[in-house]
């Protein structure tokens, strides 16, 4: 395996960068969209049920099947993968964002309102800091699932570390398979660790310990 790494380190590095890029871009788009949808859902209660039911349905569809639906319209490649990932993440993120805002004690947000804080300011200065730990928890779950699905997305020519796995299977090259497995797993575990650190820090801030 070391021999393989020595020979193709530049290609492996490109795959790693592609993997990071795909995860980062999809999470960024997913989060912005989910946040906007959550704010809408919070204002119009009837919307939240419909939205969640819709995205739960999407979430149940296996990733390869979802790719299969999207390929006839968007072709193979990264845009299709990102679109599928954004669709998947919605239910995880919207659910956690809504739950996070619900966990903010109403006495706190009402006190803020009573002091004449506006909708946006109240969101930014009062509700968001208190809701942040739960939101980051949802973000962590979504990031881990994204990293897993990005691996599968190598099948639709999106690149990333999954290429090592699938090429390895096709050519029966176990060095490649093991390397792919090790890289994918350590990448995911690293992301999990980094986001849990952020989550713990935000929890301390929300509790007023800092």
């Amino acid at each position, binding site marked *: 395996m070391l021999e393989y790494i020595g020979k193709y380190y530049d290609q492996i590095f490109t795959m790693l960068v592609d993997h990071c890029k795909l995860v980062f871009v999809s999470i960024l788009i997913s989060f912005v969209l989910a946040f906007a949808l959550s704010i809408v859902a919070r204002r119009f209660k009837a919307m939240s049920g419909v939205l969640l039911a819709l995205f*739960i*349905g999407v*979430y*149940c*569809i*296996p*990733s*390869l*099947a*979802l*790719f*299969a*639906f999207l*390929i*006839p319209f968007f072709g*193979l490649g990264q845009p299709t993968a990102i679109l599928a990932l954004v669709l998947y993440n919605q239910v995880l993120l919207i659910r956690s964002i809504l739950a996070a805002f619900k966990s903010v004690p109403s006495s706190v947000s009402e006190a803020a309102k009573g002091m004449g804080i506006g909708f946006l300011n109240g969101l930014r200065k009062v509700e968001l800091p208190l809701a942040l730990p739960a939101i980051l928890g949802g973000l962590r779950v979504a990031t*881990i699932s994204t*990293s*897993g*699905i990005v*691996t*599968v997305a190598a*099948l*639709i020519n999106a690149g990333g570390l*999954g290429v090592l*796995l*699938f090429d*390895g*299977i096709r050519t029966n090259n*176990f060095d490649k*398979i*093991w390397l*792919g*497995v090790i890289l*994918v*797993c350590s990448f*995911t*575990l690293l992301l*999990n660790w980094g986001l849990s650190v952020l989550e713990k820090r935000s929890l301390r801030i929300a509790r007023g310990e800092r």
Partner: protein
Amino acid sequence: MIHDMWQYVMDHREEFTLAIREHVLLSLVSLIAAVLVGVLIGILCAKYDKLANPIIGVFTFLRLIPSIALLIVFMPILKTGFMPTAFALTILALPAICINTYSGLTGVDRFAIESATGLGLSKRDIFTKVEFPLAMPLILVGIRSAFIDVISSATLAAIVGGGGLGIYIFRGMMMNDMVKLVLGGISIAVIALLAEVILSLVQRRYSRFI
């Protein structure tokens, strides 16, 4: 498109039903094995504190690993085919079921157990009539998420020789045949959504105690 798919199914009826049967059988066998083993380990962890930390730790770690990596890791060891794939899928489904069983049982209200003891129930009766029914909703949540995961990963099983409907997606992708691709996608999505609906109905029935 729909007409073409119908035509294809009619022309290849046997092959198509075989693929469905393989997919459903693979998912069910893995899920049932995972439920039996996972619930048992969960109960053991809840009863013997010493076991809980290491086992739950291992499963929490396993849960972070992308399913495709887990599926492929077993390939060099167990070779390809139905049973190895079923084994890998079982391992995949175990963490969610085991962790939820453990947290369901340890989360049972202490007062419920104490009043049962006060009523003179034997230890065994307390477990079967009080603790387990109260933990049931959470166990079912675990089983549900594990099942969805198994059905989607069974799609990937086609790549490691496990058969199932994933074959249509891979063939469709390789030969640029949209009919096969979307046919595979739709069949898998229907199975997954059906499983989700059935399990959520079961879950609702068993949640009446809460």
